[in-house]
């Protein structure tokens, strides 16, 4: 059987009919592969949560500053009703670089009434405020703030996340893909937070400190973004909880994170 005499030369215009037919088929199959690929990879993504980052839309917030254990602002909402807002810095950093000038001028800021213009991050009843300019932090007096209330010792399973991304800046802001970013945020001064789920499937958030209640950053990096079991003293501060842990006692769990 004599083979087809068609021979394709790229720099010549002619293309044989058999080659043309096959090429058309190849193009349609390729288009079909692209459409199927876009449908499969586009459709089967985990749904993102309705967390919010008010990027480019600054808000002025006033409240009493305290560091128990991380920089926070106790903001009055109504009579005897307050919200504890966690303060953060620009990018993957905590608020301290943006409070440095003020501390140098005013000394200890604990108990000072601050007015801060920043960008709000909020999800599931928790609010955080990103400060991107130290000039937008002002002292306007003094005020009272609450000390955390003890709730006893507990052992909990969950995932350690950085609250800046988890509560709105990134979606998803948890898990293996986001682990590097969470490590950088926490290393930069963002407080580490344990996310767990209660029996009613409600998420609970614990700001993590060392056993003495001091902030932890570097030491907790190997445990971020993976299912873990933590034991420690639990305290309550407004809508947040605080857990004082011994980092070396964190147990990594070989299972899928329950917060997904």
């Amino acid at each position, binding site marked *: 059987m004599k083979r087809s005499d068609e021979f394709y030369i790229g720099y010549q215009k002619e293309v044989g009919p058999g080659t043309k037919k096959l090429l058309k088929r190849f193009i349609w199959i390729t288009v079909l592969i692209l459409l199927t690929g876009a449908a499969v990879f*586009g459709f089967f993504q985990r749904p993102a949560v309705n967390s919010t980052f008010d990027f480019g839309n600054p808000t002025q917030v006033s409240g009493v500053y305290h560091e128990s254990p991380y920089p926070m602002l106790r903001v009055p909402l109504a009579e005897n009703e307050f919200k504890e807002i966690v303060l953060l810095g620009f990018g993957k950093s905590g608020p301290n670089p943006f409070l440095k000038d003020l501390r140098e001028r005013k000394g200890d800021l604990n108990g000072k009434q601050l007015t801060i213009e920043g960008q709000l991050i909020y999800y599931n009843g928790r609010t955080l405020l990103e400060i991107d300019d130290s000039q937008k932090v002002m002292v306007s007096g003094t005020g009272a703030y609450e000390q955390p209330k003890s709730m006893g010792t507990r052992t909990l399973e969950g995932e350690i996340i950085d609250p800046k991304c988890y509560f709105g800046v990134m979606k998803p802001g948890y898990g293996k893909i986001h682990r590097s970013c969470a490590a950088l945020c926490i290393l930069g001064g963002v407080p580490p937070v344990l996310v767990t789920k209660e029996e009613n499937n409600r998420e609970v958030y614990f700001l993590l400190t060392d056993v003495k209640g001091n902030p932890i950053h570097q030491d907790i990096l190997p445990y971020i973004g993976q299912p873990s079991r933590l034991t420690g003293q639990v305290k309550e501060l407004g809508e947040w909880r605080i857990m004082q842990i011994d980092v070396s006692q964190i147990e990594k769990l070989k299972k899928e994170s329950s917060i997904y």
Partner: protein
Amino acid sequence: MGLDYKWVFWNTHKKAYDRLIVSGMVIYLVLFFTISFLTNPEIIAETVIIRAFGSLAIIMLHIILAIGPLTRLNTKFLPVLYNRRHLGVSMFLAALIHGIFAIIHFHALGNVNPIYSLFTSNMDYGSLTNFPFQVLGFFALLILFVMASTSHDFFLHNLSAKTWKRLHMMVYLAYALVILHVFLGAFQQETSVFTTATLFLGWLTLVSLHLVAAFKESKVDRFVAEKNTEGWHKVCPPEEIEESRAKIFTVKGERVAIFKYDGKLSAIHNVCKHQGGPLGEGKIVDGCVTCPWHGYQYLPHNGQSPPPFTEKVKTYALKIEKGMVYINPKAFPEGTAIPPISSS
């Protein structure tokens, strides 16, 4: 064929080819964005960009890797091979957008250099499931960058076809790194059976195509010729070779193409000097052996490209005894003129 270097020697087919590449990429991205924002309204643009360009690059890489074996199985696929380098560069650009956005998104604005962070922000190098998958993607992107930036005849000529080919065979290493990057990264968290199955199917298709093509080609290499007393290899009767075409035989570990044209037979080395294309799968056009890959041409009797071109391949002596073609396995230096023998 060209004597000087230009960014691109445009022709009708290359323009049509590039239009199809751009259209295909746009169709994919538009559909991915539309589906993502319609079915997942809370998702953010950065995440969709990273995922859209990453998945597009993987699909394009599969298509690119399928082209080689497809052309070996059916030469009518050769037009797809002709401008494959543009497809490769386009795929690299998609992968680059994925990589740049991922590095900015996950590693920038911290208190360490983003590239340093990529290697150090997850130190679980000893674990499989917790392995820092970003590093795999980074090295894959680096290989694709080297390949894309040398996808030009300037590098092909200056590096030599052999070195250039070896360099570009690293695409298989890049593919392995990409697959590991996805399975140890995205698929650890986005655990849909459909996405995993899609990529597995792609891998399986590529492996099957390569195996079938390799089996087909191995038939040529398995051929063992009878030798006469002078050491010449007996290959076939001249009637087995079609007019203006060739048959390929392996002699002394080298593939040689024996061409029949105008009642004559000539033998030259099977490997084109341009990109290593199989000359024996080419055709005699305007009196020249024409490579099926990019149309490089050689005169069959001396293995030289027609002036003013300068490429040369080795030539071989042929003779006919008792109705059979014999080839002397000892090659002549590149470009040596050997008088053709009569095919009758």
